[in-house]
């Protein structure tokens, strides 16, 4: 390796080829002296303690707190991004803290967080920072959850699965056209990522943000649901979330509640055991029901857990095993 060499990043399917001094599509990796460097290792621009339900992860230590961190950058460019001010920023533009991995873990413990969440932007682009932190966290008894669009190549996914405890993927749509036009990416790598994670037995939950006119057709939602049931199984929780207009899609209306109800009911009818509605507090879709006896297991209002009837990982009424990591 020497200055002047071209390098190719192999972290994500974009496989950016970089000239000396050039940054990748994600804006946070660059070619320096013939090596790829990460510009955001230990440099989060967002740090917060959140309820785990905000990620959303509904089957992972309910009512616990997640010490949540993010850096600038992202390898997708979704027009509806809820955190575009950091995901689409250069790391030179954001106010970055100095928070090395061991310090993240110390703070998670100090704030009594059950887990560390790598979130907000996309931890795919701060992969090394997240993985190193997760390894230290594991030794200290702190779990790690990875909140991502899933746009990673197979080898990093494999490494990721060996160090984190749960992954939530934004399954944004079921068509290549949607991923091209709205996210400036491709669908297939995300499908491959979800299958790989499921095979590795890492706890997985999915979110589909329902965008009026873009991915809300009944047929498309049906195909997405069927893909999940066939390829990942009926026990993978699937959340349908309400979109609030921002960034480059302020022209769209918020997702009508009827559309979310339709998706939620369709998911249950087509075999999803744990279908949810997100971003509408007090909706019945916030709650977890036993797929066998249909009794209410976990009652939620927004991010708050009001009632929990899961005991030892089972429905306390009929003893049905409820998949998840309950503590």
């Amino acid at each position, binding site marked *: 390796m020497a200055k002047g*060499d071209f390098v190719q990043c192999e*972290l994500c399917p974009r496989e950016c080829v970089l000239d000396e001094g050039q940054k990748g599509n994600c804006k946070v990796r660059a070619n320096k002296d013939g*090596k790829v460097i990460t510009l955001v290792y*230990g*440099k989060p621009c967002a740090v917060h303690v959140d309820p785990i339900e905000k990620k959303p992860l509904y089957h992972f230590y309910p009512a616990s707190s997640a010490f949540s961190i993010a850096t600038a950058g992202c390898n997708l460019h979704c027009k509806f991004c809820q955190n575009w001010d950091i995901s689409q920023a250069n790391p030179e533009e954001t106010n*970055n803290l100095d928070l090395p991995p061991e310090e993240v873990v110390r703070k998670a413990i100090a704030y009594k967080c059950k887990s560390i969440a790598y979130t907000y932007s996309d931890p795919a682009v701060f992969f*090394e920072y997240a993985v190193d932190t997760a390894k230290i966290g594991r030794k200290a008894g702190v779990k790690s959850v990875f909140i991502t669009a899933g746009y990673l190549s197979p080898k990093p996914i494999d490494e990721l699965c060996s160090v984190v405890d749960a992954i939530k993927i934004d399954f944004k749509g079921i068509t290549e056209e949607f991923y091209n036009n709205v996210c400036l990416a491709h669908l297939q790598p995300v499908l491959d990522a979800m299958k790989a994670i499921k095979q590795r037995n890492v706890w997985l939950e999915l979110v589909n943000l329902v965008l009026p006119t873009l991915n809300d057709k009944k047929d498309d939602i049906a195909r997405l649901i069927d893909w999940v049931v066939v390829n990942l199984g009926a026990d993978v929780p699937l959340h349908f979330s309400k979109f609030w207009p921002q960034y480059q899609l302020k022209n769209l209306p918020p997702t009508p509640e009827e559309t979310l109800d339709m998706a939620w009911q369709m998911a249950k009818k087509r075999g999803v055991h744990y279908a949810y509605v997100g971003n509408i507090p007090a909706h019945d879709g916030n709650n977890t029901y036993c797929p066998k006896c249909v009794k209410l297991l976990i009652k939620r209002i927004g991010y708050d857990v009001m009632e929990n009837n899961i005991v030892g990982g089972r429905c306390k009424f009929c003893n049905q095993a409820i998949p998840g990591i309950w503590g």
Partner: protein
Amino acid sequence: METGKQGMTRRDFLKRNMIVVAALALLSSPLKSFADIFRRQPRKPNVSGKEARYYRTLAG
């Protein structure tokens, strides 16, 4: 054409205004330093340079 008004030489101008000029010169230096204290300095980017994983060098 004579106007009856006496012109001022450069020397006279400087003599008359030297006090003002000197005062301005003296004041401008600390004023500038004073302003510098409050002028916003460009923020130095806080980025890392750690070698990443998952890449390869291309031949040629």
